C-alpha cells in the first residue's frame, strides 16, 4: 500500500515510550508516562476519608479522577480550569480503571487520582490511564491487574496505531481520520473503548487486535517501571 506516515512510523508502530514511578515525593503514589511528545504525570492520594460526606459510599471506596491539561501543554495557550472535555475524560478514566481496583476494604473512603498533562500531542487520555494505573499500584491500592491503554485509528482507509496530533486532527485526505482509544488489562480484557467517527465492523476488529498487541507491550513497560523503582 502506498500509505506513509509523516514521522516514518509503520502502521503498527507506537511512538517512543518512557515510564517512571515515584516522581512526586509528597503523594502516596505517583508516575509519569510519556509516549512521543505526550507527557502525563499522575499523583495518587488515599484511600482517605471522602469529603463531601454525601459522596461517601458505605459499601466500598470510591475512585475519583481529575484530568487536567496544563495551559502550556499545547501550542495555543489552553484556558485553564475544568471544561466539558476534561470532566468527560475524568469520568471515562474512572470507568476505565475501576474494574481492576478492589476498594471493598475501604468503605467511606476515596482514592484521589490527579492526572496532569504537561505536554499534549494526541493520545493524552491513554497516556493518563497508563500513568494512573502505575501510580495506583505504587500507592499500594489493591488491584487485580494493571490497565494499559492505546489509541488505534483509521486514516482514510488504513488502520494505524497510536495517532499523533497531526494524524488525529489535521489529516483530511479521503475519509479523514477516526480515533479509537482502547484500554485493556494485562490479560487482554477490555475496560474502555471509545469511538467517534465512522468505521466498519471488520476494520474495528482489526483495530482491536492491533491495540491488544500494543497494550501487551505497554503492560511490560509499566511492569518494568514499577520494578525499577525498587531496584534503584
Amino acid at each position: 500500500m502506498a500509505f506513509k506516515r509523516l514521522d516514518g512510523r509503520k502502521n503498527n508502530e507506537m511512538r517512543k515510550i518512557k515510564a517512571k514511578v515515584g516522581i512526586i515525593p509528597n503523594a502516596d503514589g505517583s508516575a509519569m508516562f510519556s509516549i512521543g511528545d505526550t507527557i502525563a504525570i499522575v499523583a495518587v492520594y488515599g484511600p482517605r476519608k471522602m469529603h463531601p460526606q454525601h459522596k461517601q459510599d458505605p459499601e466500598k471506596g470510591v475512585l475519583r479522577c481529575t484530568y487536567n491539561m496544563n495551559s502550556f501543554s499545547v501550542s495555543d495557550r489552553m484556558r485553564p480550569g475544568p471544561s466539558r472535555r476534561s470532566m468527560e475524560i475524568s469520568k471515562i478514566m474512572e470507568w476505565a480503571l475501576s474494574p481492576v481496583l478492589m476498594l471493598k476494604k475501604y468503605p467511606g473512603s476515596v482514592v484521589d487520582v490527579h492526572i496532569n498533562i504537561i505536554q499534549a500531542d494526541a493520545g493524552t487520555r491513554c497516556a493518563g490511564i497508563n500513568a494512573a494505573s502505575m501510580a495506583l499500584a505504587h500507592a499500594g491500592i489493591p488491584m487485580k491487574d494493571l490497565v494499559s491503554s492505546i489509541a488505534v485509528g483509521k486514516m482514510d482507509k488504513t488502520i494505524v496505531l497510536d495517532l499523533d496530533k497531526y494524524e488525529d486532527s489535521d489529516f483530511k485526505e479521503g475519509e479523514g481520520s477516526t480515533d479509537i482509544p482502547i484500554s485493556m488489562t494485562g490479560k487482554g480484557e477490555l475496560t474502555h473503548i471509545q469511538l467517534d467517527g465512522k468505521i466498519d465492523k471488520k476494520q474495528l476488529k482489526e483495530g482491536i487486535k492491533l491495540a491488544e498487541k500494543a497494550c501487551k507491550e505497554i503492560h511490560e513497560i509499566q511492569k518494568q517501571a514499577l520494578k525499577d523503582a525498587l531496584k534503584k
Partner: protein
Amino acid sequence: MTERKVVVPGEVIVKGEDHLPGEWTEKTEEGIISLRYGLAEEVNRLVKVIPLSGVYHPRRGNVVIGKVENVTFNGWVLNIGCEDTAFLSLMEVPRFVNKDNLEEVMDIGDSAIVKIWGINRRGIDLSIKSRGLGKIEEGMIIEINPYKVPRVIGKEGSMIKIIKDETGCNITVGQNGFVWIKGDKIEDELLAKKAILFVTEKSFISGLTEEVIKWFKENNVSLKKVPKQDMTEKVSKPIKTEDKK
C-alpha cells in the same frame, strides 16, 4: 525462606495447584496472582505479598505518635497520620488533670506517644495508660512510610537496637510511621535520622542488618572520635525505651 521478588498487581507469582494463596494474593486459573505492589514471599507452600507502600491503616493495640490538633472539654483530638480523627479522652490519662485547664497537660501542637485502644465508626479512641506512653517533651520526630516500620524495627527489634547502640539515642517507632528520636546531642539525633532513612531506602535488600553495620562504620567515624568516653558510658547504661511491636 526463599528469596523475595518484586511483584506488581496481576503478576503471576507461582503457577500450578501446589500452593496456597496468602495475604494480598488470589488464586486464578493461571496460578496465584498478586493483588498489590510489593515483595512476594513463599513459606511452606503459602504465598503472600508484603506491601511496601500505602497509607497507614490503624489497628487496635498499635502504638503510634500523634500531634494534638484540638483541645476539647473532655480530651484531645490528635492527628495520627490517617484520615480518621483520633480522640484521647481525659479518662485515659493516668494522672490528675484540672478539667478547666487541659492545655496545661497538652496544648495544640504538642506530640504524644499513644496507644490505639479502640476503633469504631465515629473514630479512633486513644489511651496513654501504659508504660512508655505520654507526652513528648523534647527530641525530634521524623516521618517514614508506615509499611517500612517493620524493617526499621527488624526481627525482634534487632535493627532498632543497632541504631540505638550506635547513636546513643532513644528511639520510639510509631506504627503510623512517625519516629521519635531523642539524644543528648543534636548530632546524635541527626545520625540516627540518617540511619533510619538509609534503612527505609534499602528496605528491600536481604541482609540489611549487615549493610547497616557497614554503613555505620563508614559514617560514624567523625562522631566516634570525639565523644568516645560518652559512648561507652551510654552503652553500659540500660536503654530505657522498649521496642514497640
